């Protein structure tokens, strides 16, 4: 991604991997030979801190450590909902639309790198606060249950972990990373199987990846 963006100013890209079994996921990254740090977040700490409820999501942080775009789907769109669920293939026009959405997002990122605060994609503080959905009390309890379940799982107590992981799902049903992580712990690949697509179908007309308004209204 760094090579694609070709920053005119320093840009640090820091993907964080939300896998309770993160060291397995790390092998994907090793194969990709990235030139930027890939951080393993087995406890979903960054998701909690930045209120990320899905993957991929991204946050833009300026040179002063200020958030200039809050957590949002990073160029992801709902085209995957039409894919063939056995082969994971999708129609060419749907795939093309996905590529366009990703390019639009990277173009916006490139604009910010080049123009800094003058970029039309830098949101005002009021816009950012309006887009942030602060965690509810239920979300805080969901996090506590998830973190305890994750600790138990990673210390060899899978059966003991299960009720806490399920409670996290129940308390924050809109947090897809709790839902999918729990499925994956039950069975590798389950997070992309019928349970997942059943939950996506249950959204009906609601989006899985809410559309993102890229440009700031003030510019």
């Amino acid at each position, binding site marked *: 991604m760094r090579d694609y963006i070709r920053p005119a100013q320093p840009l640090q890209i820091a993907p964080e*991997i939300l*896998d309770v079994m993160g060291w397995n996921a790390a092998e994907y990254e090793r194969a990709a030979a990235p030139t930027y740090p890939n951080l393993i977040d087995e406890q979903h700490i960054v998701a909690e801190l930045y209120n990320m409820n899905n993957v991929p999501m991204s946050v833009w*942080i300026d040179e*002063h450590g200020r*958030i200039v775009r809050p957590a949002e789907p990073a160029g992801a769109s709902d085209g995957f909902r039409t894919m063939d669920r056995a082969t994971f293939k999708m129609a060419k026009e749907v795939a093309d639309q996905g590529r366009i959405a990703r390019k639009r997002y990277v173009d916006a990122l490139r604009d910010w790198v080049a123009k800094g605060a003058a970029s039309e994609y830098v949101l005002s503080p009021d816009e950012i606060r309006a887009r942030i959905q602060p*965690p509810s009390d239920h979300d*805080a309890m969901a996090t*506590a249950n998830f973190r305890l379940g994750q*600790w138990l799982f990673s210390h060899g107590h899978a059966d003991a972990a299960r009720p806490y992981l399920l409670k996290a799902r129940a308390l924050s049903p809109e947090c897809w990373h709790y839902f999918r992580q729990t499925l994956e712990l039950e069975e590798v690949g389950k997070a992309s199987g019928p349970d997942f697509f059943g939950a996506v179908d249950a959204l009906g007309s609601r989006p899985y990846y809410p559309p993102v308004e890229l440009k700031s209204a003030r510019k």
Partner: protein
Amino acid sequence: MPATIIFGDKASQARSASAQGDNLWLSLDDLRQATGWVLKPEGVCQGDLCVPIPPRRREEFVRPDNSFNLGAFARLREQPVVHDDAQAVWFFGEAPDARRNGLLSLEAPDFTLPDIDGNAHSLSDYRGKKVLLLSWASW
């Protein structure tokens, strides 16, 4: 019975722990090591911040043997708490108000995580650069 205490991002063993329902009594040494909070005459303190113990409820928090009830303190601070009694593991999260206020301040909260080679990286290491923080997962 010793307990594992996960307080925010830090996990530690408390040998002095004694659990009774949602109450977890600790020695003051274990309190400091597990949480960074210290009992002082003016309250329970961490750095410059002190949380007074409600005078009429002191026995809920401190016993004559100087053990301290971390469960009661977490309830006072409205921290989410979950515990597994069979494994003697307690998790103490951040109070929702504190998390909400942190998010709405728009200051990017710092964190430290290992990279795929085990080297620790903090967000604050990259101050002076723009940062794209991007999450993904293998599932």
